[in-house]
């Protein structure tokens, strides 16, 4: 089997048939994405009410003047529209294009909110998942094909994202990127952010370890970039749980060393990184029979 076929098979080849476990798992994933998206739409919408100037136009704001979303209640109206469309889409009421409309409206919400300099990435995986639902629901009618595509397509972009992050570092700085002193500089930068946000700041043990030793800081950066580089292996089903675990570990490390949280990335990796329906089908009966007929002392 050539590499292209192998990747296609790993991303879009399973499951052979949809069981109740797969349906439950899929709707749980969809529910999480719907919840996160509604949350983001409102969080961004409410915050945009405070914004009255465009410092750094992003995305579509490079083509049109996004200030029409400022100094009025359009962000709130947009959040209401996104919420209604998402709820209808979750229950498959209305058009198959609704997720695509949500995707566009959410992009407007993002560029209106982040027009004053910040380019956050914490919501990118949620946005990519909405993109997957938008394309998957519009392109596939058969539920099995829809399931395979939406899960596989989302995983494709997760792997690609981590891989491109490592390549960006190698192009932007080169192999010298892992020099531990670079981590010192980022720790100082992030500690300034925390000081400004909270009014106070204390280093944790990971940061103290990195700041005390260049080799320790270098090792941390090496583990980080290596994990990102091999993140593309999440495309392969058998490696997926191990890669997901490594990526979750990396995010935990980033949180400890640089105070940057990627909660939605970690939750999405937990949901998509492990074959929960297959595990349930394999071990569900054993677990049920273990508990049936037993009295559990409490």
């Amino acid at each position, binding site marked *: 089997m050539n590499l292209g076929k192998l990747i296609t098979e790993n991303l879009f*080849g399973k499951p052979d048939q949809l069981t109740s476990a797969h349906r439950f798992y899929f709707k749980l994933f969809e529910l999480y994405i719907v919840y996160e998206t509604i949350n983001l739409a409102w969080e961004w919408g409410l915050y945009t009410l*405070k914004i009255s100037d465009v410092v750094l136009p992003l995305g579509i704001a490079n083509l049109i003047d996004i200030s029409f979303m400022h100094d009025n209640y359009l962000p709130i109206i947009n959040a209401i529209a996104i919420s209604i469309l998402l709820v209808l889409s979750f229950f498959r009421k209305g058009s198959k294009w609704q997720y695509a409309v949500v995707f566009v409206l959410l992009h407007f919400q993002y*560029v209106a909110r982040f027009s004053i*300099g910040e380019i956050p990435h914490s919501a990118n995986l949620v946005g990519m998942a909405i993109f997957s639902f938008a394309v998957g629901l519009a392109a*596939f009618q058969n539920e099995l094909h829809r399931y395979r595509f939406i899960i596989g397509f989302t995983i494709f972009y997760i792997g690609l994202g981590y891989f491109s992050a490592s390549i960006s570092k190698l192009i932007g700085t080169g192999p010298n990127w892992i020099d531990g002193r670079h981590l010192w500089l980022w720790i100082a930068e992030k500690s*300034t952010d925390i000081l400004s946000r909270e009014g106070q700041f204390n280093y944790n043990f990971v940061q103290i370890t990195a700041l005390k030793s260049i080799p320790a800081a270098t090792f941390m950066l090496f583990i980080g970039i290596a994990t990102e580089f091999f993140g593309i292996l999440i495309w392969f089903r058998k490696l997926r749980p191990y890669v997901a675990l490594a990526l979750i570990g990396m995010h935990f490390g980033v949180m400890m060393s640089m105070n940057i949280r990627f909660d939605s990335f970690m939750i999405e990796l937990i949901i998509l990184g492990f074959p929960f329906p297959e595990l349930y089908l394999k071990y569900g009966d054993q677990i049920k029979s273990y508990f049936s007929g037993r009295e559990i002392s409490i």
Partner: protein
Amino acid sequence: MSAKKKSIQITLISFLFYGLLVATHEGEYWPFSIYPMFSKAGNPWTRALVRDVSNSTPENLWNTTTIDELNGNPVSMKSIGVDQIDYSNFVSKTKDWDTKRIKALRNMLGEEYLTTKDWMIYKVHGKLIGEDSVVVETVPILLFKSDTTLFNPNFSSEYFFSE
């Protein structure tokens, strides 16, 4: 066409679309991204802080200091409902402090706080020095008072209007 073939075709077309958008927008077209954050290591950085200097003496108010020698009391962005990264980027990326931009920053921080407090806007610069140290210095740039905004007199107008 088989579903697998259709899936890979759609994926490749979307990838082309993705590549086109990020290539023409410096790597970012939300939610498409090449995730370039932290790609340029070792570069000096600039962030921002706010301090309440209502009770500080005017002497040395405009001096550049280290982060441990700051005047006044901290103003937590969280406590005033402002996103720290937003604030920091607003201050560090603004090259032209015209009336509109100053009004936007005062509005973002909350004009209501400034009726009773004097808030100093600081830029914080960090850089690597020599083989093994990071230097962080704080530069007061604007003082927000209830009825006016003062510019740091130690800098020429070019510093505030460089665009």
